């Protein structure tokens, strides 16, 4: 069970992580060549407009004052205005966040379901040529850079077979009033197929390997022999006795893997022109739209840190043998 002292410590660590990340970002973005000024003022601006902009962003204040101002704003979830869109960073980032999560979570749920099933099967087949071949395929697919898989998938299904759209999240004539309408429409699902498929080729590997390894361990337990002695069918032993006990670490891995995967979403989003958080951050960095890049990065970090926290807690909750942070 989760003990309280551990929970409090872990929460404190989470806040410390966030604080550090935000601080590091503040200083990194002020080291940008030409400073943040270079991006927001153009030579065509007259002096008054220039001053107004400097005033607005507090760029004439000393560094420590800028930092304080920045921290206060961040606490209020105010990351300023995007130079490029002229909208508030918070609302932009929240919108992109939904897009990123809709793609990533769909892929994760499918991958973990398929991966757990295939992993159990492979574990059961252990030692056979089939299992070796399966493992080699998993290994190769996991070594493939996901953006390249995406390009190959696009080449086959969009360019050559013309079955699916080249990218983006919606067709030309689609328009929605609410988010629910947007994410539940057929048009959205149609755009979702290829990126989800691509991500699944990569994400299925981890749950598959975990499940296989756990199953191998579980299969050597005494109660499996007992089940066998009772004359149960293989299928029943695998599903009711072995797989159930082997699945725990896969559940924890789900949370950890989301944390790790968030940063990498930018690749799939770029290949499929998916209007997600990562792609927005890359575009912002290329356009020197620093407030937006910063806001997107902070949100990505928040997701990572939160998922790590959730993973630690699930771990200790699901497996009481794990004692964290002492007794």
């Amino acid at each position, binding site marked *: 069970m989760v003990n309280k002292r551990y929970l409090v410590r872990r929460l404190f660590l989470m806040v410390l992580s966030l604080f550090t990340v935000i601080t590091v970002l503040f200083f990194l973005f002020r080291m940008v060549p030409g400073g943040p000024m270079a991006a927001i003022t153009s030579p065509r601006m007259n002096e008054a407009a220039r001053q107004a902009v400097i005033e607005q962003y507090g760029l004439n204040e000393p560094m420590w004052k800028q930092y304080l101002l920045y921290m206060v704003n961040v606490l209020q979830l105010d990351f300023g205005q995007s130079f490029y869109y002229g909208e508030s960073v918070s609302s932009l980032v929240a919108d992109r966040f939904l897009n990123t999560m809709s793609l990533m979570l769909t892929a994760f749920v499918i991958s973990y379901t398929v991966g757990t099933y295939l992993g159990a099967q492979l574990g059961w087949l252990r030692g056979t040529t089939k299992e070796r071949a399966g493992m080699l395929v998993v*290994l190769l697919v996991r070594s493939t850079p996901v*953006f*390249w898989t995406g390009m190959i998938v696009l080449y086959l299904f969009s360019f050559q077979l013309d079955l699916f759209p080249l990218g983006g999240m919606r067709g030309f004539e689609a328009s929605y009033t609410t988010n629910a309408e947007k994410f539940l429409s057929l048009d959205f699902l149609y755009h979702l197929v290829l990126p989800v498929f691509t991500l699944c080729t990569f994400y299925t590997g981890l749950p598959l390997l975990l499940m296989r390894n756990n199953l191998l361990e579980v299969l050597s337990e005494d109660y499996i022999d007992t089940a066998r002695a009772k004359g149960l069918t293989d299928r029943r032993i695998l599903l009711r006795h072995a797989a159930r006990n082997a699945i725990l670490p896969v559940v924890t891995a789900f949370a950890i893997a989301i944390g790790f995967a968030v*940063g990498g979403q930018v690749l799939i989003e770029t290949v499929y022109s998916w209007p997600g958080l990562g792609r927005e951050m890359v575009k912002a960095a290329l356009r020197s739209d620093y407030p937006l890049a910063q806001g997107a990065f902070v949100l*990505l970090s928040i997701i990572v840190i939160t998922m790590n926290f959730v993973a630690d807690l699930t771990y200790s909750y699901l497996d009481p043998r794990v004692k964290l942070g002492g007794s």
Partner: protein
Amino acid sequence: MSGETAQPMDRRETEIEQGWRRFVQNLKRSAVEQGRIFMRSRMAVAGLLILVFYLLVAFVSPYVVPYEPYERVYTADGSWAKLQPPSAAHPLGTTEAAHDVLTQLLLGSRIAMFVGLLGAFMVAVIGTTVGVVAGYYGGWVDEVVMRVVDVLYGLPFIPFVIVLVTVLGASVWNIILGIALLYWLSTARVIRSEVLSLRERPYVEAARAAGASDFRIMSVHILPNVIPLSALYAAIAVGYSIVAQASIAFLGFGDPTIPSWGVMLQRAFVTQAFGTAWWWVIPPGLSITLVVTGAYLVGRGYEEVVNPQLQQGQ
């Protein structure tokens, strides 16, 4: 200082020298032994062959490539030889800017192997040092180091490297810096927990009782026991580093003047030529996959050497 006190000092030094010599001998013997077990695994040998092949390509390519990486190729009538499918003159065809694909592919192995090996080296050295120090000293040192590791875990890797490259400029060195800053975390965690149990072993206590310094205990008695683990993580880091570099280059933050597999894929993507020019897209991606698989196989093969339980499983 008088002669009587200098005498025992000298003797102690020769003892230490002997100790070091024995240490090196043991290391050599176990390396030979481990090599033998390693070669028994067919998968591991296959992985090693892939790595050696690409390493050779990396060394030889500058002397054998028929074109400059960014040399424009012309057709007979003097126009650019754009997006030519594979032919005798260009076995892997040409790009949209009329560059020879094979030349770029061969030269691209240089950056990949460089980043892969240097990245892995950094990961192993930093991760091992931090892990050994934190695990050995324990107490507040351990606490501080492990909290730093926890905090760094909160930085998403690719976005972080993008920020680094935005700030410091697009160069391979900055990508390696990113790898060195963020990829040692799991290595350090694993090594540390290993050291936590190693330092309680009787021979460590014996060494301490004999008056060995902390540094000596860490380097002679503890380090050799964790080197197999660091080597495993280093092998896996080769793959990670290569994919990381290719990914960053694919997103447009690589150095476009140096041919690399990531830059090739990025050009094929942004020009949308990948919809037709399969000869431009498949070779670099396949090369990345092969090298990463090779490194992983080597790592797994070595793990079998270190962990006899896995050998029985075969």
